[in-house]
C-alpha cells in the first residue's frame, strides 16, 4: 500500500498534466513508509514515450533524501498515451533501482488514472493508493 497526502497526489497529477504529451517523472521521499515530500524531476529524454532522470539533479535529490535519513519511497511517472501500468521498460529498470513503489499516472484521457505497484524481481503487483 502506498500512503500519501492529497496535496502530494495533486502535485503528481498536476505535474503529469503540465508535461503532457511528454512523460513526467519524480521522486516521493518518505519516512517509516509514509510519504513526506515530493521532488519533481526533469525528464532528460523530454519524450512522450520514456523518461530518464537528469543525472546531476538526481545526485542532489539522492543526497538530500539520504542526509535527512528519509527513504526513496516511490518513483512516479506518467504514460501519456497508454494505461497507468508498468511497461516492460519500467519492469527492467525497477530491477536496478531502490524504490519500494512505482506510482503511475496516465494522461491519455481527461480522466486522471493513477495506480501504484510494487515490482519485485520483475513481478508486478498492484497495490492500493491510500490518500490521507
Amino acid at each position, binding site marked *: 500500500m502506498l500512503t500519501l497526502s492529497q496535496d502530494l497526489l495533486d502535485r503528481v497529477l498536476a505535474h503529469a498534466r503540465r508535461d503532457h504529451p511528454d512523460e513526467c517523472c519524480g521522486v516521493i521521499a518518505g519516512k517509516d513508509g509514509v510519504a513526506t515530500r515530493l521532488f519533481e524531476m526533469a525528464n532528460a529524454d523530454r519524450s512522450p514515450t520514456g523518461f530518464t532522470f537528469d543525472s546531476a539533479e538526481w545526485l542532489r535529490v539522492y543526497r538530500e533524501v539520504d542526509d535527512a535519513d528519509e527513504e526513496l519511497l516511490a518513483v512516479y511517472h506518467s504514460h501519456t498515451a497508454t494505461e497507468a501500468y508498468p511497461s516492460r521498460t519500467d519492469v527492467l*529498470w525497477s530491477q536496478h533501482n531502490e524504490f519500494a513503489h512505482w506510482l503511475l499516472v496516465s494522461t491519455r484521457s481527461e480522466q486522471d488514472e493513477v495506480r501504484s505497484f510494487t515490482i519485485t524481481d520483475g513481478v508486478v503487483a498492484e497495490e492500493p493508493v491510500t490518500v490521507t
Partner: protein
Amino acid sequence: MSIEVRIPTILRTYTGGEKAVEAKGDTLLGLIDDLESRHAGIKDRLITAEGALHRFVNIYVNDEDVRFLGSLETPLKDGDSVTVLPAVAGGSVGGAVAL
C-alpha cells in the same frame, strides 16, 4: 593514494553493507578493478561485458557525471570522491536508453 567511493543501497551487498569504501586507481577503470579485488562481483554491476559503463548506473567524480568527463578513462587523483548511484529511467516505450 586513497579515494572514497560512495556505494548506493542496491550495491551494498558487495561491500558488506558499507555506505562508503576506500579504493585506489589512476583512472576510473583502475579504481573499479581495485574495488573488484576486494568486493568481488561489483565490477559486473558497473561495466558491461563489452567494457562500457553500464547504463543502469551513474558514476560521478567530484559530483560530475563521468559520461560528461572521460567515462571509464576519467583520471583520478588522491582526495577525489567517487559516487555511484542507480540510474533511473522507464516509460511507456522507453526513451533514449531503452531496450
